């Protein structure tokens, strides 16, 4: 059984036919070629597959693609704007918050979901927001600092967060 759906990814519409058992993560990676979203544990423990669905952080490896029909999806590829990085992406580079990089896309999207509703989070709120994202290089200190830096930068520049 093929189900016609439309995925709205990073502002672009993709009409697709999916099977009931197709996982959103695989559709994003294998069919749309958006490789930024990572496959980590596959069982909802690590957060590497995090994307935003209607603005909220969710796990794309736990989501059947047909349930995302018509919803707005943001992946890491959707964050840069005309070639300039999102303040979160820039802060991750500047603060050395990237080691192997595998957790980074999920980490940044969880952080974006937080900053979109809380422009001035405390360290505790940041830690709470990324609780579902594992970094096995253990760069948490730098990651938390990067998110803090980004929040200040966004505030100072009065820049509208996409």
């Amino acid at each position, binding site marked *: 059984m093929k189900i016609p759906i439309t995925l709205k990814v990073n502002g672009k519409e993709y009409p697709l036919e999916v099977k*009931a*058992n197709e996982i959103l993560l695989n559709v994003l990676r294998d069919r749309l070629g958006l490789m930024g979203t990572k496959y980590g544990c*596959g069982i*909802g423990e690590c957060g590497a597959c995090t994307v935003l669905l209607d603005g909220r*952080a969710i796990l794309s490896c736990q989501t*059947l693609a047909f*349930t995302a029909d018509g919803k707005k999806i943001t992946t890491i590829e959707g964050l840069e704007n005309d070639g300039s990085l999102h303040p979160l992406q820039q802060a991750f580079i500047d603060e050395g918050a990237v080691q192997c990089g595998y957790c980074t896309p999920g980490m940044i999207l969880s952080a974006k979901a937080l900053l979109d509703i809380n422009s001035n989070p405390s360290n505790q709120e940041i830690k*709470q927001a*990324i609780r579902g994202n594992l970094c096995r290089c253990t760069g948490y200190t730098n990651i938390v600092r990067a998110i803090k830096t980004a929040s200040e930068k966004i505030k100072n520049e009065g820049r509208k967060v996409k």
Partner: protein
Amino acid sequence: MSSTRVISLDFECRSPNKLEDALEALNWDGAQVLAGGTDLVNNIKINLTRPRRLVYVLGIPELDFIRVEGRSISIGAAARLSDIEHNRQVVSRFPALVEAINVIGGTQIRNMATLVGNLCNASPGADTPPILLALDAEVEICGGIGGAGIQSNRLPLGGFFTGPKKTVLKQGQMVRSVVLPSPPEHSGAAFRRLARVSLDIAKINCAAFIKRDGDAVQEVRIALGSVAPTPVRTPTIEKALEGRKKSDGLFQEAAELVEEDIAPIDDVRSTAEYRRQIASLLVREALQEAWKRAGGK
């Protein structure tokens, strides 16, 4: 073969917009409800369950609610855990429920998963059943579509679980909502849990509700998870406490009776022995906190 990357099992799916259509689609051998999917999708991946049809219910507007109904709060099957933990009514009336939800998974899981799903998954160690049992919650079960329309009945949560991963739900039925009676004055509730790290499933969890009459325990309900095939109430302790004046040793004394009410086993997360020993401590802490929140000294 099981894989966590792709699902090889073939099944069909339905995405109804109305409860009526969902019930119709569920009345079919091998049909299962899909809500947030955080348990079900995993279980399909690792071959724990083999549905022939999934009926996705989060797109049904009439199930997506948290509302005050008279002296109760009713939480619909499509309400996500993160909606519930940030709902003002829930936060002000049921802080202990918010605490129990807050320890579940990471942000992403709580954005996806539902309270009703947590109940229907019927894990003996789930974090919300103990507090819902202590708060005297009911589930509203509906089914039976056809000429007669939707039939629904309410069941105290205590009668809902029948074993590990098992509930009273029959093919064609689903839970429409969880109903929480508003806590009376001079009452309080608390939640306690032990796990290795915060994201882990609990080794053991516990909740207590107390209604105070001056310095006496007027009404008390205690429930524990991960200590029996289903989440359980503790009739022995409750009987020992009801009507008693609060004294220094009362809660400790009563909590030590917990062994009468539980039957823990050894598993990957803990041992029966440890669970038996720690259960009374958790019960005592939950009682003390509930008493404090009830305004007691």
